[in-house]
């Protein structure tokens, strides 16, 4: 069996290595084209320019981009992602290791919830098409897209922590802190998964093999759960790869609002601070993570759909 998956494995691994390196090359030159440098006076111009030049020289920002590229590639091969320009003496890998568990935890639970809520909603609204159930789940699913996350976050904070006092307002540590962020994070994927599932379930329930299954006396539940689900889940699986990568590496808005010590905020602050090594480090980390998720999705797809295994 593993032999049969061979084709997919090597295809995915070769391209993941090739991908690994390429975004980061693009990135490096891209960054040097963007104006501004990591060392700038910030709020007020209280550092004379000569000192700034000095600091930039110390970090080797003055030498031409291709030279920096070589030095960067040098230590990359040694596994050192370099130090952050902004957070002095913190290496990028330290930042990533420090931030990743928190982001992963929130991301992981929001994936679970978006699947646990999204899939059934999609199926129900497909089976009861036109009925009030279809209506209700579609409206619920649309909330995820229509209402901006920060409004939902603020409302939930207002209701659950301020008024009812059930949940702490912010901070990190116990599961209670995760409830609102996870809900905010999973609303949008729920909307997407519900719609995808509804659309593909409608498609599948019209197929002949569903009627054959019924003609075999298979119970309605089993017809949907066994025969219907497996076929209908395929488009959702393709969407899972990028979704998992995106959620597990944290979201800027949610982490900033709920003070989650995660990775999400670095994706944005690194760029506005022009913190080159953090940007590069994060891109590589995200790139690798994305490839891993896509690899898992490819394998999952092959497990579910035998036809994919055989088309060389």
């Amino acid at each position, binding site marked *: 069996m593993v032999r049969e998956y061979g084709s997919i494995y090597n295809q995915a691994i070769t*391209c993941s290595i090739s991908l690994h390196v390429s975004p980061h090359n693009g990135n490096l030159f*891209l960054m040097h084209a963007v104006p501004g440098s990591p060392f700038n006076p910030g709020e007020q111009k209280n550092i004379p320019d000569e000192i700034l030049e000095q600091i930039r020289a110390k970090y080797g920002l003055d030498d031409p981009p291709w030279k920096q590229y070589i030095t960067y590639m040098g230590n990359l091969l040694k596994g050192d992602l370099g130090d952050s320009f902004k957070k002095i003496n913190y290496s990028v890998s330290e930042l990533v290791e420090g931030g990743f568990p928190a982001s992963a935890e929130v991301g992981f639970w929001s994936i679970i919830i978006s699947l646990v809520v999204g899939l059934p909603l999609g199926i129900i609204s497909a089976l009861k*098409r036109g009925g009030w159930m279809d209506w209700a789940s579609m409206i619920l699913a*649309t909330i995820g897209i229509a209402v*901006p996350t920060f409004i939902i976050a603020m409302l939930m904070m207002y209701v659950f922590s301020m008024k009812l006092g059930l949940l702490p307002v912010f901070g990190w540590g116990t599961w209670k802190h995760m409830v609102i962020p996870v809900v905010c994070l999973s609303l949008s994927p729920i909307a997407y998964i519900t719609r995808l599932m509804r*659309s*593909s379930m409608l498609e599948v329930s019209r197929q002949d093999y569903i009627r054959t299954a019924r003609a075999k006396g298979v119970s309605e539940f089993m017809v949907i759960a066994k025969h219907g689900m497996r076929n209908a889940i395929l488009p959702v699986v393709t*969407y899972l790869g990028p979704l998992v990568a995106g959620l597990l590496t944290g979201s800027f808005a949610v982490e900033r609002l709920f003070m989650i010590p995660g990775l999400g905020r670095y994706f944005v602050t690194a760029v506005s601070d022009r913190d080159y090594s953090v940007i590069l480090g994060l*891109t590589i980390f995200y790139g690798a993570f994305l490839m891993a998720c896509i690899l898992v999705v490819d394998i999952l797809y092959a497990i579910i759909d035998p036809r994919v295994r055989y088309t060389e």
Partner: protein
Amino acid sequence: MKSNRKKEAIFQPVAAPIYTLEDEITDDSLFEPLDDAEKQTDVISRPSLTYWQNAWQKLRRDPLAMAGIVVIILMILLAIFGPLIQPYTYDGQDYSAINQTPNAQHWFGTDKFGRDLFVRVAYGARISLTVGFAAAAINMVIGVLYGGISGYVGGSVDMVMMRIVDIISAIPSLLIIILVMVFLGANMKSILIALCLTYWIGTARQVRGQILSIKNQDFALAAKVIGESDFQILLRHLVPNSMGPIIVTVTFLIPQAIFYEAFLSFIGIGISVPVASWGTLANDSLANMNLYPHLMLFPAVAISITMFALNFIGDGLRDALDPRLKK
């Protein structure tokens, strides 16, 4: 089959036959041959509708989709005529009327500069809707073409194209956008270009997946047999058949474009002050949301209603465009 109460109306009562073979029929004329006139052979009972008319009929009967269309029309009217109804301009400041809650004079109240919120929301509609629709349309076209070609051609081309997609999605989009802004300056054009550089990836992936699964179905092979060019097959057969997921992703693109525009404007890349879009209005009001809730309420409600409307239209469209789906 559900036996429901309307059953009788469905089945007309079986009328007793006026003649039966056994009884004597006196009227011999009954047995003259039926002349052709009376034989209406191929009578057309219902007008045959074109594909689009049929879709429109189905759409018309979907209440949610209709409500959606009405709301979108309202929003467009608001965008065009809103600023004209009120005597105020979107940037006219009036320090005697700072942070007023909605009243007769200012329907939506005023912001901290005393600017009329109704006019700003109406003006914001112009920007947000154009950015939303334009970005969604462009991204859909790019995404569908890219995904379509990648899915249809398959093999190593597909692998390469998909890896390019992964590379682009790995590069932080903010970097690309700041770069665009540097060369093109902060205005609507640069936002659109920026949004169109990174947002078509989702559609491309979805369309590729769909095309991959339907490209070797019979109708596609049949089209190939009658000599249609690959491009024709892709556009006239494969893409219309993957309308479902395409519409789903498009209804996602619009809100993402609107919120991202707000984020860009906030970090100084999007539209410059004092022009405002729904996104920036909502962002600015975040700071003192509890003090002046009305500043947050109206733009947020405007965004949400439009998104709800778009999504219901999207759902209605998806069902209507699917010929096999009987209502």
